[in-house]
């Protein structure tokens, strides 16, 4: 099976939010409230238990004029996924397409994946009790279909296909944009960190932090060794202290 990926090219996104709608419809995701945020045309806010695609509306001044950039965010399906490593039930698995999938019939809602995701993607649905996130349309991929968001995208801002081919495509697109004088475009694919790259890569204009994309995401398992060593040493110290304390006076009562 080839490893599949998303390449979200923000430079052609028109902010129509069809991806958000298609995702909700196909995956039967419930509504998660509505509120005016006052943050441009973004009243979705962020990814969550019931928002698996989220269009960001980035406002800035470019060349003296107000510029509006849109970018459709999604679960990154990390090469080294914090949620997958942390899941104590084995509910979160790597699919044959390389995506990260939460098996809803296994998840018991312990919530540990939520704090181990370096992108803040996973969350627990309060009225359901289980954790949810983008499934990478595992069911559609199994049937040979592309994910609902990519299928519905009217400008091909969301592209789906072989991950390595998409990485080449993203680099080519960057060259084309530079030739046209767009010098502030960057590809977001954190290959340089412990996350080891993402299966959802993004091309955005400007600074990635303006899109709430962490420049150096790290998979939390990197500190496991050091933390367990500390726990082991602390346990040994506890044992030694208690033994020594009893050696000094395990029976003799203090006055009174």
């Amino acid at each position, binding site marked *: 099976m080839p490893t599949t990926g998303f390449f979200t090219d923000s430079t052609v996104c028109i902010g129509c939010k069809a991806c958000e709608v298609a995702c909700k419809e196909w995956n039967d995701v419930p509504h998660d409230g509505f509120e005016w*945020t006052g943050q*441009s045309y973004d009243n979705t806010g962020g990814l969550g238990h019931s928002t698996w695609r989220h269009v960001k509306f980035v406002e800035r001044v470019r060349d003296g004029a107000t510029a509006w950039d849109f970018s459709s965010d999604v679960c990154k399906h990390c090469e080294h996924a914090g949620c997958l490593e942390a899941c104590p039930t084995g509910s979160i698995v790597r699919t044959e397409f390389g995506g990260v999938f939460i098996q809803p019939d296994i998840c018991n809602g312990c*919530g540990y994946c939520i704090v181990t995701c*370096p992108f803040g993607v996973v969350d627990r649905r309060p009225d359901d009790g289980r954790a949810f996130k983008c499934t990478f349309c595992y069911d559609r991929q199994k049937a040979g279909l592309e994910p609902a968001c990519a299928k519905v995208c009217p400008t091909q801002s969301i592209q789906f296909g072989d991950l390595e081919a998409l990485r080449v495509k993203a680099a080519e697109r960057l060259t084309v944009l530079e030739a046209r004088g767009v010098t502030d475009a960057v590809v977001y694919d954190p290959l340089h960190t412990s996350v080891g790259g993402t299966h959802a890569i993004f091309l955005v204009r400007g600074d990635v932090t303006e899109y*709430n994309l962490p420049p150096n995401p790290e998979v939390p398992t990197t500190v496991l060794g050091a933390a367990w060593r500390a726990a082991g040493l602390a346990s040994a110290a*506890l044992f030694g202290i208690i033994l020594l304390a009893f050696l000094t006076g395990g029976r003799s009562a203090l006055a009174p």
Partner: protein
Amino acid sequence: MDEVTDQQQADREARLDRLRDDAARLGPLTQPIAGYYGRPVLKPAIWTWEVPAYLFIGGAAGICAVIAWAAALFDNPALARDARHVAATGAALSPLLLISDLGRPGRFLNMLRVFKPQSPMSMGAWLVALFCTAEFGSVVGHLTGTVAGGAVARQCDLVAALAGLLLATYPGVLMGATAIPVWNRFARVLPWHFAASSLGAAASILELVGHRVQALNVIGLTAAVGVTALAVLTDFRRDGVSKPLVSGRSGTMSLLGDAFSGPLPLMLRLAASIWPAARLFAAAFAVAGSLLTRFAWVAAGRQSAQDPDLVLGVGSR
């Protein structure tokens, strides 16, 4: 949607008015210079009170199991029995607290579906299962009053003591190996902090039950010194990541928790040579401080997750 109260509706209107005022004042550009509208990048833990309560109870029970084993070894059956009872009570409460915190409590057995060393939550679930089994065996074995029962119980006590040591320290790994900045930063300190805090709480609970052996006082003193030393590592930092440990509500809880389980019992225990009752006050403070410390770390994590600057690195821009 859920029913909206008049108060919620009024709050909403007030917020929208503020947004309109901002729009009129600041012009068409709504995004701040740094970050994405200041929205958090990370999601906070959904843990409710059960988890920090478990961290306290599990840690204290784990150390009590070690004390029970040591007391039996050093021929103090009364202390061994009471320590065992505290450990067994903690062992009975821990799974109840953990299961009630699950989103799907009925599926708690799924925790034992896999054995996953790279997941501290999985290791914790197995550890709790082992500790509870050993404590159950110990209680039943001692109840039988037979020679065979006593032998089984003694083996169980040893297993419970070994599991108890890790039960008091693994929560540091559990919280350290996450994306939450303040927990991740102190991944190497948290196991020691929880160890010292649990050590002080366990000895203090047994003192409050009525035991006056010198060993417990020595343990209490050592734990107080340990917490004081660790508090110096965490409470005098001025960087952005450590902020929830020293300021705001979580900072207050953290500082109070450390003061209650570190310097305060240390001074009271030293004062006990001239004022014996001080030892009981020291014990009471250490227990309260240990409990508060767990709630403080969880609250600090929640605070830490809300701050996008810590992950985006835009604060210094």
